[in-house]
C-alpha cells in the first residue's frame, strides 16, 4: 500500500492507495498518529484509491478516530469505493465515523467545532 499526504488550509488529507490489510495497517496507523501529532485543522482520509480494507485496517481507523476525538480534531472519511463502503457499513463503522461521498463535502463539514 502507498500513502500520500496532502496538506490543505482547512485539513490534512491522508490518501491510502491499494490494499489496507494486516501488513499495511501498522504503517497506516503510524502515519495517522504522526499527522494528528502535527495538530491539523482536520484529518480527512480520502478513500478514492483504497481498494480493500481488512479488519486490521478498520482497527487503525478506529484508533485514529478516537485519538482525533481526544485531540479535538474533526475526523472524516470520504470518497470510499463501493466495496470498501460496504465493509464500513457492514461492520457498523460508518455509524461512528463520519463518511462523506467526496472530498469537497468532507472539507465543508470539517469545520472546527463540527466533528
Amino acid at each position: 500500500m502507498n500513502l500520500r499526504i496532502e496538506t490543505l488550509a482547512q485539513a490534512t488529507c491522508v490518501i491510502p492507495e491499494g490494499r489496507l490489510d494486516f501488513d499495511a495497517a501498522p504503517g497506516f496507523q503510524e502515519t495517522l498518529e504522526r499527522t494528528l501529532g502535527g495538530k491539523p485543522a482536520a484529518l480527512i482520509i480520502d478513500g478514492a484509491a483504497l481498494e480493500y480494507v481488512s479488519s486490521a485496517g478498520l482497527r487503525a481507523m478506529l484508533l485514529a478516530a478516537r485519538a482525533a476525538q481526544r485531540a479535538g480534531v474533526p475526523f472524516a472519511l470520504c470518497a470510499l469505493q463501493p466495496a470498501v463502503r460496504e465493509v464500513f457499513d457492514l461492520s457498523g463503522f460508518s455509524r461512528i465515523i463520519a463518511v462523506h461521498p467526496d472530498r469537497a463535502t468532507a472539507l465543508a463539514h470539517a469545520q472546527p467545532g463540527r466533528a
Partner: protein
Amino acid sequence: MDHSSLSSRARTARARLTVPPVLRSVRQLIELVAAKVRGFAQLLIEGRGPYARAFENLIVVLIIFSVASIGVESIPGLPGWVMRALHVAEIIVVAIFTFEYLLRIIAARNKLAFIFSYQGLIDLVAIAPFYAGGFDTRWVRALRLLRLLRVLKLQTHYLEKVVEERTRELADKNAALEKAQAQLKAELEVARSLQLAILPSAFPARPGCQGAARMIPATTMGGDFYDYIELPDGQIGLVIADVSGHGVPAAFFMAVARTNLRELAVRHTDPGECLAQTNDALCAQNPLDLFVTVFYCILDPKTGVLRYANGGHNPPYVRRAAGPIESLNGAGGLVLGAMTGVGYPTHTMQLLRGDQLVLYTDGVTEAFNPTEELYGVQRLVDEVHMHGSGTPAALVERICQSITNFAGTAPQSDDITLTVLTWGAP
C-alpha cells in the same frame, strides 16, 4: 627409602657445594633478566596490543622510507647535506631493524628454525649488507621490499583469524536463535491446538437438526471462532465470530469474547440484548483496542423460529429447501469491543423443513488465488446452490475443497471458518 632417591639427594648436595652462592644469585639474575627480555620481545613481536601494532607500523614506515631513500640516493648531483642525512638515516634504520631482528630471535620458540626460515633470512639480508660494507649494496637493500610481504602476510593471517572467530561467534548466535525460535514455534503450536480444542467438536443432538463446522486457521494464529450454546429452554445458540488482526493478541481476545458470550447467552435469551451485554463486557477488558465481528442466532428446534442479531459480521445465507438463497441481512450493529453502550436489533426468520443455514467468516470470501483474485461471495453462493441438498458436513467439505482449489499455491492469509445447520431434515 630406595637407592635412587638417596643418590639424587647426594647429587644435589654436591651441586650445592660446587656452585658458590654469589654465582648462583648472578645466574638467577641473568635468568630473570632473560625472562623479562623474552617477555618484552614477545609483547612487541607476537602481541596483539597497541605496542605491537605501533611497532609493526613503525617497521612498515621504515621499510618504505629506506627503499625510497635508495631511489633518492641515485639522483645525480644531490647536495652533500642530503647525502649525509640519508646516510645517518640509514644507520638509524639498520639499528632499528637489527634490534627487531634480535627481538624476533629472542621471541622465537625455536631460534635456529627462525634464523634459517625464509622470513628470517630476508630479515638478515635486510641488514647484513650494511655490516659487510665496502661494496654497492643498493640492490641488496632493495630486497627490504620483500619484508613488506611479511607484514602483509601477517596482517592477512590476522584478518583471517578475526573472520574465523566472528564466523564462529555468528554460528553460535544463530544456533541459539534457532533454538529460541523452535521453542517459540512449539509453544505457538500448543497455543494453536488449545485454541482449536476450545471449539465445539459436535453439534448438540436434537431431533431433526444437523450441524457441521470447520475452522482452518491461517499460518499465524487467528481469531475466528464458532460456538454452539445449549440454552436452558432447549433452544440452541449458534455463534460465528472473527477477531480483528492475527497472532497471539487476536487469539486471546477470541478466548475472552467466547467466554463472555457463552456466559451472557444463558442469562439474556434475546440475541440483540446478549450482543449488547457482551459488547459492554468486552469494552471493559480490551487493553489492545481489538474488536470482534459476531453473528449470533438462536434456533428453536421445535418450531424452526430463528432469531438473530449481527455485530458487524458478514450476513449468513439461508438456502431454502425449495431452492432460493436468501441473505440474513437484517440491520446489524457495530462490531463488538469498539464502543460501549451500542444496541443490536434482533430479527426473526421462520425456517421451513430442510432449510439450510450457512454461516461464514471473511476468510472464505477473501481467500486469494495466485493472481490476487478474491474468492468472493458469488463462488460461495454457487457452491451452496449446487451442493446444499446434502448433509451439512458434506456442504462444509465441498466449500472448503472449492476454496482450496481456487487458492492453489497462494498462502492462506486469514482463518477460514464455516458453520452449516439444517433444520427439520428427515
